[in-house]
């Protein structure tokens, strides 16, 4: 027995010695894919750190390193537009694995690579921001700013486009309920979202929704056949507003692969450095269920349901009745109705919204060169807004119910080694109804909107010179049921038909493994939306009477862009920069009229939607660097917009902004970080364009400490973070509450999460 063991030991030792004595003839091979496993990362780089050698993947993303010695091996994977990633393992035999990279370009994610599945680690970074507002998460993308209404609402702005010109896709379905104005935030829980990015040009043609080019994509981590069971719970505390966030997620397989996610949030009055922002509390409860059934290698079915429920308080001091109130509110040191103490309670003005999204998808892949998808996305948006009013405060001033349905069929086909074709048709129906009982004539009328669209894109992706082009056609029908403003009141129906065209073509040149350039030209038309056609009434948020114009014609835009990316061979540095220029005819602009309209509340300026000629241009620069134990991420964005019809700048253009984050890894499980945000003053606004000059620029710094412990073999993450470290009082130009109050001050945030 004893002898036997010894013999076995000796044999094993001998074997080992034998292996060691062998020539270095092991191989490491695999395939580099995007994290969905849909796209091969052609010509990506693999760098073996120990030996200082590099190889390049082929057109299908396949790589192979031969003549490796056994022992520790560190590989750094990189691809232009992706974050580099290091994988370290002990090489003992020929090894083959897939590497899943996430495109960094326009993503807020860093890339993570594992040989088992990218899903879990991917989510981590966005998870850490799940207790923030979605808009703040999106701001991490270089070039994205937020159009805000204080802490109550937050909408993304990209390259100067927002609202009706920038569609938001929630899990592949255009987010409904976004065409009612800029004080309504997208009803999406950041906890469910794992990836956010902005696509434009040819890549954006396939997405439905009202846009003048770009589209924001917000997606949960897909359930794949690699998805392993697991879960995560997280709790976050924000000292500013004493906000509590509880998140939970569970992934498992039982007949179908599924993932359950839920979030609960509660916060009270936020605090500006010098006073409480009274009535800015929020409550939120969200739930999502994702399911996937891999019926056969050729057929996959996916289902998704999410419910977003929120009640949001709006700063009490920002509610004004007329222009004189506004003038008085502006001059104040602290807003009207500022309470001296903190409270979780909030009253009117407030918003209550619930949003359901149900999605079903069937993907049929008869061969690895073709696939067909059919998708249905249904949404129900129920929004109530409560104003301070003379009658019953519990009576909503706005009650909207919107049903929307999207039916989509798509086809993807690979033609030869480098070429691929994608085509699809979409059918969309939106039914928007103002619920009776508000005692106020609605600002947006009841309407029915039907849209039919189709797209076709072609990609040619060899190693050096690539090109792509695409076409999109839409037909939009509206029936608006307006209520006349003259007496006696009556219902007047209007119908509209719009045809719009989108076309885009681009080419990219890969100069060498480090440098590539891309240029794209896009023509897009955008049909006017209902608020632009039929808004009617006093909009207290802007202290003006807003009037739509039903004679508006589609906007017509031509945009050109040039982007350059550099990625160093060892993946330690990547730099990307881009420039764009966009000309828009019939740019639908809300413009103040010359005259004031006299009402019982005094005289109000009349704002009318008018088609003007506009131009926008700008650029952005993003740097990612890994030096020793430091990670640096930095992004700068500039945009300018002009109304060519009257030579004035466009309003709500983001001023120059620069965002940086530096992370220092102290030990494997302890990181320190520092962030800085610098926003310049918006100087390109004429005094007559606003009731108040733009606020001065500001700089905010933050810091954080993250520690990972192990509990029962699973990671327990602890984070401490300070936002607005210096408790700086500032106002942001894109914040519509800047007339009334400072932005929130310092917040010390604590977060704990445990995953298994």
């Amino acid at each position: 027995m004893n002898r036997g063991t010894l013999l076995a030991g000796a044999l094993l030792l001998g074997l080992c010695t034998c292996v060691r004595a062998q020539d270095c003839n092991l191989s490491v091979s695999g395939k580099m894919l995007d994290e969905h496993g849909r796209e091969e990362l052609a010509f990506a780089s693999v760098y073996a750190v120990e030996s200082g050698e590099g190889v390049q993947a082929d057109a299908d993303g396949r790589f192979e390193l031969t003549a490796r010695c056994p022992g520790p091996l560190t590989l750094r994977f990189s691809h232009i537009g992706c974050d580099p990633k290091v994988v370290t393992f002990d090489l003992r035999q020929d090894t083959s694995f897939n590497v899943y990279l996430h495109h960094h370009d326009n993503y807020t994610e860093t890339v993570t690579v594992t040989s088992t599945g990218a899903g879990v680690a991917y989510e981590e970074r966005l998870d850490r921001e799940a207790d923030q507002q979605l808009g703040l998460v999106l701001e991490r993308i270089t070039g994205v700013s937020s159009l805000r209404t204080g802490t109550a609402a937050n909408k993304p702005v990209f390259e100067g486009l927002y609202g009706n010109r920038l569609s938001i896709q929630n899990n592949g379905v255009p987010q409904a309920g976004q065409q009612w104005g800029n004080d309504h935030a997208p009803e999406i829980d950041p906890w469910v979202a794992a990836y956010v990015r902005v696509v434009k040009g040819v890549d954006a043609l396939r997405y439905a929704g009202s846009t003048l080019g770009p589209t924001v994509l917000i997606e949960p981590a897909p359930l794949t056949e690699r998805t392993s069971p697991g879960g995560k719970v997280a709790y976050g505390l924000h000292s500013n507003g004493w906000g509590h966030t509880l998140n939970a997620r569970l992934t498992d397989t039982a007949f179908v692969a599924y993932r359950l996610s839920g979030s609960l949030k509660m916060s009270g009055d936020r605090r500006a450095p010098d006073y409480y922002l009274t009535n800015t509390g929020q409550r939120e409860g969200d739930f999502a269920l994702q399911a996937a059934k891999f019926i056969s290698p050729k057929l996959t079915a996916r289902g998704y349901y999410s419910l977003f429920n929120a009640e949001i308080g709006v700063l009490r001091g920002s509610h004004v009745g007329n222009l004189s109130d506004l003038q008085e509110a502006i001059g104040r040191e602290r807003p009207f109705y500022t309470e001296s103490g903190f409270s979780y309670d909030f009253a009117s003005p407030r918003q209550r919204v619930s949003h359901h999204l149900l999605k079903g998808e069937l993907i049929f892949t008869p061969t690895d060169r073709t696939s067909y998808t059919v998708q249905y996305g249904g949404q129900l948006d129920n929004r109530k807004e409560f104003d301070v009013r003379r009658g019953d405060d519990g009576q909503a001033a706005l009650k909207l119910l919107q049903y929307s349905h999207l039916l989509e069929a798509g086809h993807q086909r690979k033609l030869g080694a480098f070429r691929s074709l994608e085509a699809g048709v979409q059918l969309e129906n939106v039914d928007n109804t103002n619920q009776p009982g508000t005692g106020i004539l609605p600002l947006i009328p009841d309407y029915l909107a039907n849209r039919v669209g189709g797209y076709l894109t072609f990609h040619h992706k060899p190693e050096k010179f690539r090109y792509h082009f695409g076409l999109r056609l839409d037909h939009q029908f509206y029936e608006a049921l307006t209520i006349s403003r003259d007496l006696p009141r009556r219902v007047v129906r209007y119908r509209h038909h719009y045809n719009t065209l989108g076309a885009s073509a681009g080419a990219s040149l890969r100069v060498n493994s480090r440098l590539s350039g891309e240029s794209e030209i896009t023509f897009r038309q955008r049909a006017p939306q209902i608020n632009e056609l039929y808004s009617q009434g006093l909009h207290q948020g802007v202290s003006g009477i807003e009037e739509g114009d039903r004679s508006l014609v589609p906007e017509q835009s031509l945009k050109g862009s040039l982007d350059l990316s550099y990625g160093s061979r060892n993946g330690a540095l990547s730099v990307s920069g881009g420039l764009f220029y966009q000309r828009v005819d019939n740019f639908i602009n809300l413009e103040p009229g010359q005259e004031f309209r006299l009402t019982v509340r005094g005289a109000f300026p009349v704002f009318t939607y008018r088609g003007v000629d506009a131009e926008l241009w700008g650029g952005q620069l993003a740097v990612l660097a890994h030096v020793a134990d430091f990670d640096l991420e930095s992004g700068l964005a500039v945009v300018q917009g002009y109304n060519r019809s009257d030579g004035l700048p466009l309003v709500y253009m983001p001023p120059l902004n620069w965002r940086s984050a530096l992370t220092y890894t102290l030990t494997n499980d302890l990181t320190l970080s520092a962030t800085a945000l610098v926003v310049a003053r918006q100087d390109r606004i004429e005094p007559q364009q606003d009731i108040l000059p733009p606020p001065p620029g500001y700089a905010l710094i933050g810091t954080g400490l993250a520690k990972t412990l192990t509990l029962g073999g699973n990671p327990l993450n602890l984070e401490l973070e300070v936002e607005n470290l210096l408790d700086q009082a500032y106002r942001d130009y894109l914040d519509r509450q800047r007339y009334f109050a400072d932005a929130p001050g310092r917040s010390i945030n604590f977060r704990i999460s445990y995953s298994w």
Partner: protein
Amino acid sequence: MTRFLPIALLFFLFVCSACGSKEDPVIENEEEVITDVIYQLKPVGGGSEEVTMTFSDPDGDGAEPALVNVTGSLAVNTLYDGTLIVANLSDSSNPQDITAEVINEAADHQFFYIPSAGLETTIRYRDSDGDGNPLGVLTEVETGGFSSGTLKIILRHLPTKGSSATISNPSAAGGETDIEVTFPVSIGN
């Protein structure tokens, strides 16, 4: 044949996109709207003419212009009792007096009367809410010598009552303005 199927389908979709019709919306009963403001000035003890100032805008935010009317001049050095009436006349078949509602919620409301510089008047509150703070449905106006100018009448909802605001200077009061109307006024002409 199958080649034309997608085209036929697309055509069908285009045709289909134009169908559908929606039910008429309910025309909201605008219960809280104020369309008319009437300020009646009666000379105390008679003697002079009564003066009535009227602001009327039945279509609210609509494009139809508001009508402002003042029946005559105020007499010099005269004391007037002022009464304010606010009403919703947007639906002529159902006129509504809102004054009673304002009096009911007196603690949440306050009227302000702001004569322009040069108009020789002194205006005082003649009523109060349950807490002894002024309301301003009832007022008295004391005229001085020959002069002319404007009188601005403001109704604030949820002002800070008991603040340093005076009848002719509402700025410390805050609140939302429900009414802000201006009348041309002349004294003695």
